[in-house]
C-alpha cells in the first residue's frame, strides 16, 4: 500500500444525508492509489452507490448532500464540484444498471462519452481503444443501443466511460444481471484497462469476481466500512467467505442457518 501522496482518490470520513434526514453514509473513509484496482463490497442498501455519487457529484440529482468529511482527487478537494468538472479532471463512471442511452446508436453513445474531450485526435484515439477492447461493438456501431444484449450494453457502458480516457474508473455493479461467462469477460476487461494505466474502484455484490481481481477491498455495511484488506486476504477471511461467498467453514451452508446470519457476524457494530 502506497503512501498518502500516491492516493489518487481519497475519501475521508464522509457522511451523506438524503432529503436532510436520511443518513446513509456514517463516516466512510477509503483510498484508491494510482494503478490499483480497489473493490467495494456490500449488500443492498449498504450505501455503495451513494458513496459513488458522493465522489462524482451526482448526489444533488438525488437531493443528497455531503454533510461531513471530504473527497480529494489528485490532492484537490472535489466534494462540491460540478459533475462535469470531475469528468474533465479524469474520473469516469459506469452507473448501476448500465444506463446507456437506449434510443441512441452505439456510436452516438460513445460520442456522448467523449463529450468532455475537445481534441479530435484524442477522441479518435479513445474510440479506437474502445473498439479494440470491445471488438463485439464494432459491427454494431450504427445500431440502436437499446436493442443490444445485456452483455453488449454493459460493454458499451464501460466503453462510453473510457472514451474520456479517465485516470480513475468507477464501476457500479458491472456484473449485475449478466451470465457467468460474460462476467468473466468483464473482469478480464477491467484487468486490461487497469494494466493500461487506469485505476479502478469496483463496486460489486459479486464478491468472488471482485476480490479475484482487486488489489485491495473494502466491505461496506450500513454506511460504515467494516473491513478492509488485500483481495487475497479478504478471499480467505472466514466472514467474507460465509456472508459474501456463501461458503462457511464446514463447506456449503444450509439455508436453515441463514436466520442466525446477523447475530453471528464477528464484526457487527
Amino acid at each position, binding site marked *: 500500500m502506497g503512501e498518502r501522496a500516491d492516493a489518487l482518490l481519497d475519501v475521508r470520513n464522509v457522511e451523506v444525508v438524503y432529503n436532510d434526514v436520511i443518513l446513509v453514509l456514517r463516516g466512510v473513509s477509503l483510498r484508491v492509489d494510482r494503478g490499483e484496482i480497489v473493490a467495494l463490497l456490500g449488500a443492498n442498501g449498504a450505501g455503495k452507490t451513494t458513496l459513488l455519487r458522493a465522489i*462524482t457529484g*451526482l448526489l444533488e*440529482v438525488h437531493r443528497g448532500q455531503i454533510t461531513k468529511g471530504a473527497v480529494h482527487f489528485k490532492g484537490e478537494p472535489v466534494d462540491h464540484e*460540478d*459533475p*462535469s468538472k*470531475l*469528468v*474533465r479532471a479524469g474520473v469516469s*463512471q459506469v*452507473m448501476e444498471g448500465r*444506463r*446507456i*442511452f*437506449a*434510443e*441512441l446508436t452505439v456510436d*452516438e*453513445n460513445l*460520442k*456522448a*462519452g467523449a*463529450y*468532455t474531450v475537445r481534441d479530435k485526435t484524442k477522441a479518435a484515439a479513445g474510440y479506437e481503444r474502445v473498439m479494440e477492447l470491445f471488438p463485439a461493438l464494432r459491427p454494431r456501431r450504427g445500431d*440502436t443501443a*437499446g*436493442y*443490444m*444484449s445485456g452483455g453488449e450494453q454493459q460493454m458499451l457502458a464501460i466503453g*462510453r466511460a473510457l472514451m*474520456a480516457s479517465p485516470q480513475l474508473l468507477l464501476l457500479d455493479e458491472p456484473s449485475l444481471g449478466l451470465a457467468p461467462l460474460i462476467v468473466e469477460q468483464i473482469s478480464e476487461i477491467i484487468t486490461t484497462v487497469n494494466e493500461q494505466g487506469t485505476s479502478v474502484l469496483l463496486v460489486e455484490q459479486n464478491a468472488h469476481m471482485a476480490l479475484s481481481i482487486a488489489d485491495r477491498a473494502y466491505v461496506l455495511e450500513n454506511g460504515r466500512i467494516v473491513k478492509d484488506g488485500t483481495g487475497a486476504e479478504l478471499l480467505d477471511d472466514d466472514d467474507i467467505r460465509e456472508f459474501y461467498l456463501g461458503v462457511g467453514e464446514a463447506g456449503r451452508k444450509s439455508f436453515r442457518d441463514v436466520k442466525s446470519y446477523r447475530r453471528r457476524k464477528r464484526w457487527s457494530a
Partner: protein
Amino acid sequence: MTQFLQACFDGLALGSQYALIVMGFVVIYRATGIINFAQGGALILGAYMTYNVSNTWGWNFYLAIVVSAVVVAIFSILLQRAMLQRIFRETIGVIGGLLLWAASVYNGASHAVGVVVGVVAGLVIWQLAARIEARVGARGPSELPLFGAIMVTIGVLFVVRQIVATIWGFGELNVEDPWELDTTMVGDVILQNAKIATIVLAALGLGLFFIIDRYTRIGIAMRATHFDHEAAIAQGISTKLVFATAFGLAGVVAALAGTSAASGANLITPQIDTIVFLAFPAMILGGFDSPGGAVAGGMLVGIFQNLVKTYVAQPPGWFPTDDLTWLGAGFERVAIFVVMILVLLVRPYGLFGTEEVRRV
C-alpha cells in the same frame, strides 16, 4: 385537380409554419420536460422584431430576419436562465417591473416615466421576493417544480403580449417584405410568393436544426440529456449548456415562424400567437419528443386543414350533399382537433413519439 393541388400547396405553406412552431415546443420539451407556452411570446416578439428592423429602421428584410432570430434566441435563453437556473426573485422582479412600465404607459405616462416606474417597481418587487424567500426559509437555490415552471411560461406569454402592445401598439401593422401579394402561376395553381418563401424559410430553419441535432456534439448531448438526464450528467455533459441551446434554437424557429406569419398578405397584431394553439394538434399528432414528428405532424395537419377548408366550401361532385355550410365557418380548425383525438385513440404517443425502446 387544380383545386386539390391548390389546397395542398397552401397546406404545405401553413404546415411549414406549424412545423416551425411545433419544433420550438419539441426541442424545449425534449431537453427540459417543460411545455414552454412562452414560445407564443417568442413568436410575437419575432414578428415585431422583424417589423421593427425592416420597417422602422429600414434595414434589408433578410437581415431583419437574422436580427430577429438572434434577438428572440437571446430572449429565450434569458427566460430559461431565469426559470431553470432558479433565480426566481429576479424573474419576478423583472416581470413585475415590465408590467408596471406597460401599465404606466397605458395610463398616459411617457416612455421615459414608464421606464423609471418599471425599474423602481422591479427593484422593490425583487427585494420583497427575496425577503419572503428568507422568511419562509428557502435555503440555497430552491428547485422550481416542473409544473411551476410551466405556469411561469404561461405568465410570460401574457406579459410579452402586453409589452409588445406597449411598444408597438394594438393596431394592425404590415411588414414590408419583398413578396407582398405577388404570385407565381404553375399551371392553374396560384402560388403566393410569400407562401413559397415560408416553405423555404422553414426548410432552412428545420434543416439547420436537424444538422445540429444529428451530427454535432451539442446535438448528441441534447438527445442524451432527454433520454437519461443523470447518465448524461455522468458523462460530463453540461445540462446548463444543453438547456440554453434548446431554448436558443427554439427562439430561432419561433422568430422564423413569427416572420412568416407576418409576411405576404398577413398583418400583425399582438394576438398573432393564436396560431400557436392551432399548431397544438400538429404537436400531439407528431409526438411530443420527436423533431421528425414535428415536421410530419405540421405538414399533415396543414394540408389536411386546407383540404377540409376547400372541400367544405365546395364539396366534390360525388359527395351526397353540395351544401356543407351548416358546418359553420372555420370548420377546418375544428376538424384538425377531431383528427387529433382520433389519432390519440390509436396511438397515445402520437404518430412518431417515442414510447420507450425495449429489448424484445
